[in-house]
C-alpha cells in the first residue's frame, strides 16, 4: 500500500481571524443542525444493515439426528490466531470421531472467521449475530451444546455452492 501524504495548507500569519473562523464553523454546524437527514439507526425497531461478510458469534452445524457436524479434526484450534478454541477429540458410540469438548471463548475471539474457512466439514461457522449480552462472563465461553443451539444464520463469508471461492 502506497503511503499518500496529504499536504495541508496552513494559513500564514496575518491571514486568519479567529472570529471569522468561528462564525464559519458555527454556520456549518448550524447547517447540520437543521439538516433533516440523520445517520442514526433506531436500533431495536430498525435493524442495522449487516454486510454479507459480517462475522458474529459462532454456530455449530448439526446433522439431522442432532449430532454436531464437527469431526474434531483440530484445524480450527490450530488456525485460530486468538487461540480461543479448545477441542478434545474422541470417538462416539458409532465409531465416529467427534468433539468431546468444544469450547469457543467469544471474549478472546477476534471474529476473523478463519475457523469457518478452514473447517473441512462445514461444521463451525461465524454467524450473522451481534446481540450477545450476558449477565456473567463465563457465559461467553460457548460450549458445544450452546454452539449447536445457536439459531442465527451463519455468515455468507463462505458460499456453500462455491466451496473453493473460484
Amino acid at each position, binding site marked *: 500500500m502506497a503511503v499518500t501524504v496529504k499536504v495541508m495548507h496552513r494559513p500564514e500569519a496575518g491571514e486568519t481571524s479567529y472570529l471569522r473562523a468561528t462564525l464559519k464553523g458555527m454556520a456549518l454546524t448550524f447547517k447540520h443542525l437543521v439538516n433533516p437527514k440523520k445517520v442514526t439507526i433506531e436500533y431495536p425497531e430498525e435493524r442495522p444493515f449487516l454486510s454479507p461478510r459480517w462475522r458474529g458469534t459462532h454456530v455449530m452445524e448439526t446433522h439431522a439426528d442432532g449430532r454436531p457436524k464437527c*469431526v*474434531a*479434526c*483440530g*484445524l480450527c484450534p*490450530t488456525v485460530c490466531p486468538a487461540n480461543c478454541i479448545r477441542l478434545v*477429540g*474422541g*470417538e462416539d458410540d458409532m*465409531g*465416529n*470421531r467427534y468433539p468431546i469438548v468444544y469450547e469457543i471463548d467469544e471474549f478472546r475471539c477476534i471474529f476473523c472467521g478463519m475457523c469457518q474457512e478452514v473447517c*473441512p*466439514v462445514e461444521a463451525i461457522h461465524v454467524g450473522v449475530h451481534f446481540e450477545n449480552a450476558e449477565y456473567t462472563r463465563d457465559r461467553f465461553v460457548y460450549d458445544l451444546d450452546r454452539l449447536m443451539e445457536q439459531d442465527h444464520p451463519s455468515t455468507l463469508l463462505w458460499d456453500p455452492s462455491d466451496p473453493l471461492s473460484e
Partner: protein
Amino acid sequence: MSESATKPMVTATLDGRTVTVPKGTTILQAAETVGVWVPHYCYHPGLSSPAQCRLCLVEVQGAPKLAPSCVTELQEGQVVHTESPKAKEMRQGVLEFYLANHPLDCPVCDQSGECKLQDYVHAEGRVHGRSREPKRGFGRDDYGRDVLFYGDRCGRCTRCVRFMDEVAKDPRLTVVERGNRSVIDTFFEEGLQGSAFAGNIVDICPVGALVSKDFLHKARAWDLDHSPSVCPNCSQGCNIDLHVRDDVVQRLRPRANLEVNHHWMCDYGRHRYEWMNRQDRIEVPVVGSSADGVALEWGLALRQVADRLANAPQPVMAVASASSSNEDLGALAHLVRALGGGEIVFRSERAEKEIPLPGFPTLTRRYDLVPNRMGAEILGMTRVGKDDGTGGLEGWAAHRGTLLVLGDELRDVGVDFGPSAGLYVYLGSYPTPAASSAHAVLPVTTFAEGEGTFANVEGRVQRFWPGVRPPGLARPAWLVLAALVERLGGAAVPESAEAAFLRVAELAPELQGLTYEAIGTQGALLNEPVALPGSRS
C-alpha cells in the same frame, strides 16, 4: 572408511548433481545422500522393496521406461532425473490413482499431518481429482493389540505385511483378494494378538490405514513436539522420540538407529509412557520431618541440608535407581565420596525372559527393565533385591548413619524406612510413604523432563533430551546433588548436563573421553569393552 576402499564406487549424475556411492546402491538411496527425496510408499529402509507403489519412478536417460528407483541400482555414468516432466507427470498420475478410492477423510484421520499421501499430493498432486465414480469401502477392522485398520485409507504398500514377514518373522498379515478388492487382512480371528512388535506397523504405515488405538483421536500430529530420547523401559536403550503435547507425553515413536534398534521398538516399551505423565509429584523442597516439615525455596533448603550433611553421621549409605541418568548417579557418587564414602546400592526390575525381534535380533526386550543398569554398575553401585524390584533393604531400618535415596520410590518398605537414621535425605519425583521420616525431601525431575545419558546393555552411552517441563520447583538431580557438594566444599556446580557428564568420567574410566558431542544422537560405546550379558547375571 576402509569399506569404501575395497568396495567399487559408481559415479552418476542425479538431477544435475554428481553423486558417488558404493556399487549396488539404489537410485533412491543415492538420491537421499545428495538431499533429493524421491517420493515412495512401499520402500522402507528396514524392509525389502517390491517396487509396487510405483511412486518412486524416475527417468533414467536412455531407458525406454521409467525405473523404480527403490530397486534400480545406480549404474556408472547414468543420468537420472527425478524431477523431469515425465517423472513428475507420472507421479501425479499415480497419486491420482491413490486418491481415486481414498476416502479423503483427513479431518478424522489420525495420520493427518504426518501422512505421506497428504504430503505428496499437496506437493505435486493434481488440484482436482477426475474420479466421479463411487468409492469402494472396506470399513475398519480391529487387528488386535494396539492396531486398528482402516481399509479405505490403505494404499496397499504392504509395508506392514513385509514387516511382519521379514522383521517380526511372524507373518500374521497378508493381502487377500486381488486387484481393487485387495485388502490387508489377518489370519482368522487371532489377528496380531501375541505379537510383541506389532506396534511398528503403525509407525511404518505411510497413510492412516493402520492407527494406534492408544493414540486414536488423542492429538493431532502437528500439535506434537518431538524430542529425541531413549526408551527407558528396558536396558536395550532403543532410540525414540517423545511426542509431547502441552507437557503431556502422548506416545513414543522409534527413532532410527541402525546399530541399536534399526527403525523399530517393542510394544512393551512403546506403551509404557503413562508414568511420565504422573501428576502426583513432589514439587517443592521440604526440610524437616513429615510432622513439622517446611516447604522452602531451594536456596534455603540446600543450605539447611548442606549444614546437616556437613556433620553427617557415619556410615553413609545410599539407594540409587537404575532409571536415573549417568549424570544423576555420578553426582550421587560424588556426594557420597564428599561425605567420606559409603555403599551405594540400587534395585531394578528384571523380566522373566528376553523378547528378541527375530528379523533384527540386536533389538531385544532385555531382562533388565531399567535403562541404566550398565551406568550404575560402572559407577560401582551394586544391585540388591529381588527380580520384581523389591527387597534388599531389609537391614536398613536399623541404619543409624546417613541415608540418601535417589529416585527409588521405595514402594515396598513403607513408613518404617529410615526413622532411626541420623540423617535421611530423599531425592525423588513422587511422594512415597517411605519419605515420611526423611529430614529433607528434595524434588527432582524425571527422565522425560531432563537431559542426560543412559548406558545400555551393550555399553552404548546414549543421550536423551527433555520433552516436558518439570512441575513446580523440581530440578535435575545432578544439579541438586552438585549444589550440595559445592556447599560441602567441593567443586563448583556444573553449568549444564554436559558438564555434569564430564564430571562423571572422574569416577568411571569407561566414560573418559566421551563428550555429548561425540555421543550425538546415535550414541557412543564405552571405552572399555563391555561383555554383552548373554546369560542372566
